[in-house]
């Protein structure tokens, strides 16, 4: 399983990288390579040029910027895993990261790589959609932004232009009485998820739900938000029955993925349970209680 031949370049900055992409439609960016390299080894991907952005200065960072945590595209998953800012201000991401692959792949894999790859089961994609992240990308000398919700359009398909390169992601930080829940099901502990659910909740002083975000991943072509459930549950006490009704309604018509690992029926059914558990956990953690045992 040796890759087909290609040219290798290390651009000094992001604009040089984009110029390379523009010059050759079969050029591809390589960051962590944890997904791209196996595809190339199997000759499913055959770029003529690899544009290595790993060492471009200024693309790897984690910083607080007002009410946002800004993360550079080439920030390694393992750095996010250990970061104090992420732990404090993006607890949902902190909870999800240990589920991403293995330590060895987190040591190289980048957040930008994961998002650009858009695997339906990717945890980072689910988190980005759930938290209404905004992605930044560079193309032809200009920086643009796109909402996570608009970014993922199909399985492994994004609306990122082919000559563009992600530069960073910005996550709004929720302040107040916040709780999070994250659940994932797979065959083995570190496999691609069959189904994943993420929830973040802000409780008001009365203990009722002031704000809620619920996302499910791995069940459909790309992560989705349970908008109707969020609306239905806002302002409520988030009791079990209400959660179940709202989530069931929101997921009633999904077109679930069917593959070797899990049937569509399984995904459709378990997504409901997992989302309910995630919301219940989010409420519990906001109240300082114990979450659902996984």
């Amino acid at each position: 399983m040796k890759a087909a031949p290609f040219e290798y370049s290390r651009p000094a900055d992001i604009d040089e990288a984009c110029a390379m992409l523009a010059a050759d439609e079969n050029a591809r960016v390589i960051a962590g390579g944890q997904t791209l390299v196996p595809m190339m080894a199997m000759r499913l991907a055959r770029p003529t040029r690899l544009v290595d952005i790993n060492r471009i200065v200024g693309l790897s960072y984690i910083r607080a910027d007002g009410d946002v945590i800004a993360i550079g595209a080439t920030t390694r998953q393992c750095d996010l895993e250990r970061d104090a800012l992420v732990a404090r201000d993006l607890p949902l991401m902190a909870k999800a990261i240990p589920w991403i692959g293995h330590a060895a792949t987190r040591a190289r894999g980048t957040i930008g790589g994961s998002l650009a790859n858009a695997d339906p089961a990717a945890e980072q994609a689910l988190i980005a959609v759930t938290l209404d992240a905004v992605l930044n990308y560079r193309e032809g000398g200009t920086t643009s932004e796109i909402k996570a919700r608009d970014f993922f359009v199909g399985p492994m398909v994004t609306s990122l232009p082919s000559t563009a390169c992600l530069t960073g992601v910005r996550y709004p930080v929720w302040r107040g009485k916040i709780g999070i829940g994250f659940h994932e099901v797979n065959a083995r502990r570190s496999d691609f998820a069959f189904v994943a659910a993420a929830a973040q909740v802000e409780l008001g002083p009365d203990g009722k739900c002031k704000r809620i975000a619920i996302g499910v991943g791995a069940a459909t072509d790309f992560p989705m938000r349970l908008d109707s459930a969020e609306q239905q549950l806002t302002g409520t006490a988030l009791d079990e029955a209400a959660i179940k009704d709202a989530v069931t309604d929101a997921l009633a018509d999904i077109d679930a993925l069917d593959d070797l690992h899990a049937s569509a029926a399984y995904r459709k059914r378990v997504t409901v349970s997992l989302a309910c558990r995630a919301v219940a956990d989010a409420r519990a953690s906001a109240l300082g209680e114990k979450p659902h045992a996984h």
Partner: protein
Amino acid sequence: MSALGKFRYVSTDRRVREDRRFVAGKGRFVADINLPNTKHVALVTCPHAAARILSIDKSAALKMPGVHYVLDGDELAAATLPLMTGLDTPNVPRRPLAHEVARYSGEWVVAVVADSRAQAEDAAEEVVVDYEPLPFVLDAEQALSSNDILVHQAHGSNVLLDKTFTWGEVDKDFAASPRKLKLRVKWGRSSTVPIETFGVTASWDPWRDILDVHASIQMPRFHDQIGMALKIPGTSVRVHHDVDVGGSYGVKRGIKHTVLCGYLSRRLGFPVRLIEDRLENMRGGDAHGPERLFDVEVAFDDNGIVRSMKMRALENVGAYAGRSPFQLGKPVGAIVGPYKIQSVQYRAIAVVTNKTTQDAVRGFGQAPTNVAIERTMDEVANALGLDRLEIRRRNMIRHEDFPYTIPSGTTYDSGDYHLLVDKVLAHTSYEGLKAERDALRAEGMLAGIGIAACLEPSGGNATFEALLNPKVQTSTYMDSCRINIDGLGAITAMMHTTSSGQGHETLVGTAIGEVLQIDPEMIRVTRPDSLNSLPSGTPVGSRMAIMLGGAAFHAATKLKTKLTTIAAHDLGIPLERAVYDQGEVYDRNKPEHRRSWLELVQIAWRSYHRMPPDMEPGLGTSHVMQVPTGGMPPTADGRVQMYPCTSFEFHLILVSIDPVIGRPEIVKYRIGHDCGTVINPKIVRGMTMGGIAHGIGAALYEEFAYNDDGQLIAQTFMDYLLPSSHEVPDVEIIHQETPSPHTVFGQKGSGESGYLGAPAAVANAINDALKPLGISTNSLPIKVSKLGDMIAAAQDKQSKGK
């Protein structure tokens, strides 16, 4: 002295000497060996489940950089003989490259030889093969029942083997039994999948007429088969046994790979190497394991005593067959498991389909058969409302019954099954386990206890060959060891096969050290090549502790006798008065009269005038051993003594399943294990733990799944799921040693331990967990999604009040 007080080195907690080189990365695996001027092979594979090969256009490939040759099946078929088969099926030939027709998706069609593997792959993409897709069959029952689609036209059917054996009064026993039960059990297609793929470098020396083969192999008669296929004498094939093999557990046969590279090297004049990449390995390496459908029927009484059993085993062999159909025959040697079933009817059917070819997998068919037997025992208990442990107690062969001859003719050597079960339960209370299960159920989980009692036939008396193929008259199953003490008194022992992690060098050193009463670390163990080897059956059939241990023991005993005889003669005393003690020999009546090791070496090597008359000078001995209790072909009604020894294992596990998620978690794992005398405790523990991990994989995660187009959809490790450290629970092993009367130290085999019973235990645990829902599953692997869907459907049904 060991804990038993019997041995000096055997059973002591010694390090495994092979480990030293491995921790430093200094193993010598086939890909580490680089002969000068070696060229590399990559394969062009068939994309269709079945297809006629209409034409092959090599022109573009030949122009690619670094390419030396492009070989097709026609050329290879003209120059070589088909590979050896086990059954008598001359119209089902098997060749390294498909010839005229390709019969499974992934079958090797063209081999490209280039300066580097990468260049060979580049060129392989440029080979244009024109195929005419043909109808194909994937399902064994369909292949059996209909000749509409034939995998091999010339064979006239898809059936390679259909043989029924009736041992005992089956019909009578069924008529006389008040109760009957039928069960269908499916063992999904999986394999042992070593982390190292198969690799071979073949190098033809035309000046010495020798084909040097360095390969990652674990199999008997390897050099014979290479020679036969290439139409050169076996003495023109030199297989290097000192290659480290990165795991095999049966499957590293690689005959087609080696014949391919051997042919190419002879044709092209330089060493040719093929290291399978993972895709070539999974799709076309021909290392798949059994895919078997069992239909079991048992006759029993109200006390749960199973009197008779009928078993039909239908094996989906894949598109071609070497020895793999014999995996239907090996279980005959333990067809009733550890139970006193009085009569058995066994029908073994092997059919070809358009799937990848199989090879021998750890246990050689025993693990699937044990699932069928153990699921049946559980269902008998359920039918009667009896405890599943109790049913086993009632049916198991008792200690006083040994040696015990089963209906198919094999005599089990020794065992104390009830005692070991008691020991396990003394360690882990059955009532306590039930309470734990019930507590989990009370929390809303599904939970079940899994029990499996199974045997590991060991010693490798492979008379199932003669059983399934009457043309085979083999009753000899050998192993050998040579020992030489050099002129300075240093000891070298030679073993004549490769090893793939079983610690055979340590085994040989320990056995010889035990006999000669010398620290095993002082004994050099080598593995000469096949031209310098005595016969070896190689590590199959859980035989090496018995056979190689035995051969080493006997060779060492001959040496000890020689030393003692030389000393007695030199001391001028009768042999009976000479006492051998840790390398020295002294006069029993006068202990200060002695000869030291070095003195004895000196006499043997240099002082012929002091030797006993007519004794060979030097200190070299060898022993070629026949398998204990072996040597007889089957009777006319198919009864035969197979493996000489039976180890026993008893699994007791607790499984918990979240009813929503449907993923089984093994909460507790206990195994009672008795393999007779344990020669090296570290090795045996490792075998058992590794076998359990394999078994868990086969039960829950691993499957070579095909889609309806005959495409293997689990062709990488992303889809063929191997257990990681997260998937293997902590296991407590409860030990017992019931020695075998047939072996030199009382040892039995343990190379398959854990794997033979773990799938059965897991299947039984899950079924126990599903019992409150009124459902069961008898098809492995039991995957999360399938289980989840089953549970959901059952809960749905229950809530609707049926």
